[in-house]
Structures are given as structure tokens and as C-alpha cells.
């Protein structure tokens, strides 16, 4: 399967600070990819590099096999929804659809019209008077109706109330089911992504910590709990992601490709949220020699 986004050692530096560093990914097509990480981790930077809004400082990035924003044809294949769904406040809903129709050769007017009707949006209403959820829905319509091969959504539900959030994700899943489109969406909350994503990338402190299909990640990560062990005497062949000790008990979150045979350990499954949190905690532990500081993306 071809990769929708392929990066090799990708990095972006603003003056002295690295917003993204050493990013090597190969995101396969046909998935809904969740890009999760705390604020300032580099999610927006990665997505901006993918849409061609930014140029890399080091490394390379290829989207659908081409340089991002290489020309009108490439721009037509990627749909983008920016954070806070920017729209023209003075233009009506219908005007925005006309914008899409005039600026995109692949525009599906029927799809756009159907969606707007189903969403109950008044075509004459100015975009500035829409609610947050309606704006996100309109912006999603604009991105989806140009029939892209890849949809990139930057924190699409971050500022929405829970109902609008759910409705947006419902809408997105319907679009994914209807069209053959790969999706990359970012969020700083894993709960937003759990139901929708079948591929996860954890980005903390400008570096990718773990990436892979959700099924595979859940199958290869386990929670081991057992009697208190010395940190030095932990079983080999296991990659320990996080460890916590009480005076009598040790709990480990490990990554392994094979089953755990040691009968001393009680093995249980890990939920996606706990898995992501463990990687975030691991990143927060200071590692000697790491001089990459956090950078908040300036808005």
C-alpha cells in the first residue's frame, strides 16, 4: 500500500528552537490517523509541513508521492481544515460553496449541496454568525467536497462543545465511509480520537514517540504487575515504556512482539489512552543530552 505521508529525518527550526525534529514516518493509505500529543509538541508544525504551508529545515517530506503544495494538481488532492476553521465572516454559506466550486476543478457540487442541506445550514447565512460547530461543519464540507485523496485536519474539535464534537466526528466518519479518503487529524485529547482512529502517532516534545496501527499497538503493549523488583533486574527482551513501584508491587507497561511467559507477572491489556499517556510520561522524563526545548506554535 502506498504511503500518504512519507517523511525522512524531517525537522523544522524557528530561530534557535526545534518545533519538530528527527521525524521519520511512513503513514499508509486508507486509515484514519490520529496525531496526538500535548500542546506545543509539534503537531501543527508537522501538519503545516504536510500541506506545504511550511518548508522543512532538514529532512524530506512527501505527500501522496509528491512535494507538498507542488502545484494546483497536488493542492487538489489534499483537503485541509485549519485550527478554528477559518472562514470569511462576511461571505455566506452559499458564497463559500461558490468559492470551493470556482477554486477547485474536482469540486462535487451535489455532494456539497447535500451535506449543507443535511446539516441544516441556511445558505444565505453569513459565516460570521454561525456557531463553532456549524463553522467546523462548513469548513469540513469545503475540504471534503473537492474530493481529495487525503484529508488533513488540525485540531478540528478542540474548541467545540461535546455535542458539536460528536456531530463533527459523526460527519467525518460518514465522509470516510462514503469516499475513499485517508484522514490525518490531530488532537491533544486521546478521547477525541479513540473511536475514529485506526492508526496513531504520538508526538511529544517535537519528536515522534510511537506510531502504528491501533490494533498492532494494543496487541504489542501489555501491563505487567507483580511483586516488587529491582529496576536493574527487570526482564530482558522487553521494552519498558513506563514503570511504577510501590514497596511491594511493581507495575510495568512494556512493548513486546512476543507473549510474556514469566509466570510471576500478571499480564493485562492496555487501553489506548493509558498507552499514549505512558509514552507522554516517558518523554517528560529528562534524558541526558537532550537539549530540544518545547516550542509553542505562535498563532
Amino acid at each position: 500500500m502506498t504511503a500518504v505521508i512519507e517523511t525522512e529525518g524531517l525537522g523544522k527550526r524557528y530561530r534557535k528552537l526545534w518545533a519538530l525534529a528527527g521525524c521519520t514516518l511512513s503513514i499508509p493509505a486508507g486509515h484514519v490517523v490520529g496525531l496526538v500529543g500535548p500542546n506545543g509538541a509539534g503537531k501543527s508544525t508537522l501538519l503545516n509541513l504536510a500541506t506545504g504551508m511550511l518548508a522543512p529545515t532538514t529532512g524530506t517530506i512527501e505527500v501522496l508521492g509528491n512535494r507538498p503544495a507542488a502545484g494546483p494538481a497536488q493542492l487538489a488532492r489534499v483537503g485541509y481544515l485549519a485550527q478554528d476553521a477559518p472562514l470569511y465572516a462576511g461571505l455566506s454559506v452559499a458564497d463559500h460553496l461558490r468559492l470551493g466550486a470556482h477554486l477547485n476543478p474536482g469540486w462535487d457540487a451535489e455532494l456539497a449541496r447535500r451535506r449543507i442541506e443535511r446539516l441544516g445550514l441556511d445558505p444565505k447565512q453569513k459565516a460570521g454568525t454561525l456557531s463553532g460547530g456549524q463553522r467546523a461543519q462548513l469548513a469540513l464540507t469545503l475540504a471534503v467536497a473537492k474530493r481529495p485523496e487525503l484529508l488533513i485536519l488540525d485540531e478540528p474539535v478542540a474548541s467545540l462543545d461535546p455535542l458539536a464534537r460528536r456531530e463533527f466526528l459523526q460527519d467525518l466518519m460518514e465522509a470516510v465511509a462514503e469516499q475513499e479518503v485517508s484522514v490525518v487529524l490531530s488532537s491533544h485529547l486521546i478521547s477525541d480520537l479513540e473511536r475514529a482512529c485506526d492508526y496513531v502517532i504520538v508526538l511529544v516534545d517535537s519528536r515522534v514517540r510511537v506510531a502504528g496501527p491501533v490494533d498492532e499497538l494494543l496487541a504489542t503493549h501489555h501491563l505487567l504487575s507483580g511483586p516488587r523488583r529491582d529496576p536493574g533486574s527487570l526482564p530482558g527482551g522487553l521494552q519498558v515504556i513506563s514503570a511504577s513501584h510501590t514497596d511491594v508491587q511493581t507495575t510495568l507497561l512494556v512493548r513486546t512482539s512476543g507473549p510474556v511467559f514469566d509466570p510471576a507477572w500478571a499480564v493485562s491489556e492496555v487501553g489506548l489512552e493509558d498507552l499514549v499517556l505512558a509514552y507522554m510520561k516517558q518523554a517528560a522524563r529528562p534524558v541526558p543530552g537532550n537539549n530540544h526545548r518545547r516550542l509553542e506554535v505562535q498563532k
Partner: protein
Amino acid sequence: MIWLTWRQFRAQAITAAAALAAFAIVLAAAEPSLSGVYHSSGFASCHGAACTGLASTFINDLSSGGGIAGVPETPYMILYFLSVVVILIAPAIIGIFWGAPLIARELEAGTFRLTWNQSITRTRWLAVKLALIGVAAMAVTESFSLIQAWWAAPIGKAVGLGGGASIFSETRFGVFVFPTHGITPLGYAVCGFALGVTAGLLVRRAVPAMAITLAIFAAAQFITPLVRPNLFPTSQTVTTIAAAGANVSLNANPRLAFTATTVPGHPGAWIISSEGVNATGQPVSSVPAACEPLVPQTNVTHIGRGPTTSAPGPNALNNCVASHGIRVAESYQPASHYWPLQLSETGMYLALALALAGFCFWRLNRRRS
């Protein structure tokens, strides 16, 4: 993209059309009475070059009598002044309200993330916007100019024949008349627009960009008249004080200066500078000793047609200075250089506009953020 450009420009286009319509209506309404004075002064029926007297009469009729309560200026003077001001500031208005927000508003509101990710490159987006709105800018400004020129045609004719006075004294080479007539408004309009767009792109916020555009435009208004005389090769001639219609004028220290009003053999010429020279052509910088007593006690520069003080007037001074063999060296642009100068100045501003536009294309494609 054409649709989007129009849709986003719609409000400004309607405002400009309304302003243009109001301008035309006001001047059209005032045309019959101007025409009336034109005919009643007898200037209308005078043809040929010997009509200077009637020209003066016409201008005087426009400038005197029948003012509005307490205001000395007549409606014609006010209308003339305001109409020239409108054409003068139109490029600035265009730069501020059409140019500065063009890119800056998109950056401020974040809508560039929407529009520049549609299936259109930034280059194409900017090219269509610059082309369509640039042409509109030129058309609007030139329309103002043509309408005003139509209304003020009799005045222009009178001034051209030497009959100008007070507010109507500028010839077509004048500081306020040259940039508002002919084809120079085209260059100013498109350059003002390009200046606004560039400021908006660099500053990334609309209101500061508007202020910067206004400041640079104002500065250009001061600098251009200094550059203008040199946009085309000037001509020189040396002639007598009398033939130059010159009067001695004195600066801070009794330096000798002249204010010439005509170039013999070149009616309608634009006199750029005039200075005194002696018989061998050397510049003379001070009043001859023998003429000192004729210098008025208070240093007064007389500009215009004749002495206005009592005591030894400029005419006596003129004759004394002339009798010492001092003549006037004039640097001027003949009337035939009017259109070459217009083309040079318009071309200069068009070139500047293109350079600014080129910079904008380059800068827009730099993917920093």
C-alpha cells in the same frame, strides 16, 4: 478566482462607483454656471493667442463676488480646489483601503489557510487579484481626472494663456495639476495600490499597513516634484530681465535671485529655475553695489505681476541690475515636453509598481509560516 476577487472586492467597487457618480453629478451640475461665466466674460468667443486679457477677465469673474456667507472664496474656487484634491488623494485611498488589506486581512483572519489550500497556487491567487484590482484602480482614478478636466477645461485654457490668478494660477506643469491630469493618475493609482499590498504583506496586519502606506505616499508627494523636472532633458537659455518677465527677488542675505515668468519664444514653457548671470555667463550672486540703495528696507520677495510696495520698487531695481549687464539664465521645459514628461513620470511609477508586485510574488512563496 475572478469570481472570488469580485466577491471580496464588491463593497469597495460599489463605494468607488458611488463616489465617482457623486463627483460627476456635482461637477455636471456646476458646469452650466461655469459655462455661463465663460461666455459672459467674453473669453469663450475669443480665439487665438491674443486672448490673455479676456482670460484674466474670466478668471477674475470666477474668483470674485458672490461668495458664500463670510467665506471669501467663490463656489468655483472651492469646487476646483476640492476636485483636484480628490484626484490627488485617490491613489492614497486606493492604497490604504484596497491595497493594504488585500493580503494583510487574509493573514490576520487566518483565511489564507482556507484559500491557499484550495486547488490554486498563491501565485495565481495574487496575480488575478493584482491584475483585476490594479486595473480598477487605474480606471477609477483616471475617470476622476477626466471628469474634472472636462469641467475645468475653460479654466485650463485661461491659465494656459497666462490669465491665471490666485487658486487658478497653476499651469498644467504645476505641482498639483501635473499629477492629477493627463496619464499620471494611472501611474499613481497602480503604484499606490501596489505599495499598499506590499506594506500589508510585510507588516501582516491591515491597520499598521494602512498607516505606513499613507506615510510613504505623503513622502512621495514631496519627493516627486523635486524629481519631476529631471525626468526629461531640460533646456537652457539666457535672456534679458525684461524679456524673461523677471523680477529681482531677494533672499536672506541680499543674494541675487530672479523669478522669471516667461521664456521668450517658448510660450507655455515650464520654468524650473532662473538665476542671474553676467555678460560672460558667470553666475552673479549679489546685487551690484550701485543698486544697493534701491533694495527695499524689508526683504520682500515679489512674485507676480508688479510692485506692491511704495519706495524704490522692483522695476527700478530691475532696471538698475539690468543696466549692469546682468541677465537671466533660465532652465525650463518647453511646452512640447509636456507629454514626454507625463510618459516618463507614469512609466516611472508603473515600473515601481511592477517591482513591488514582483517582490510580493517572491515573498509570498517563501514558506516560512
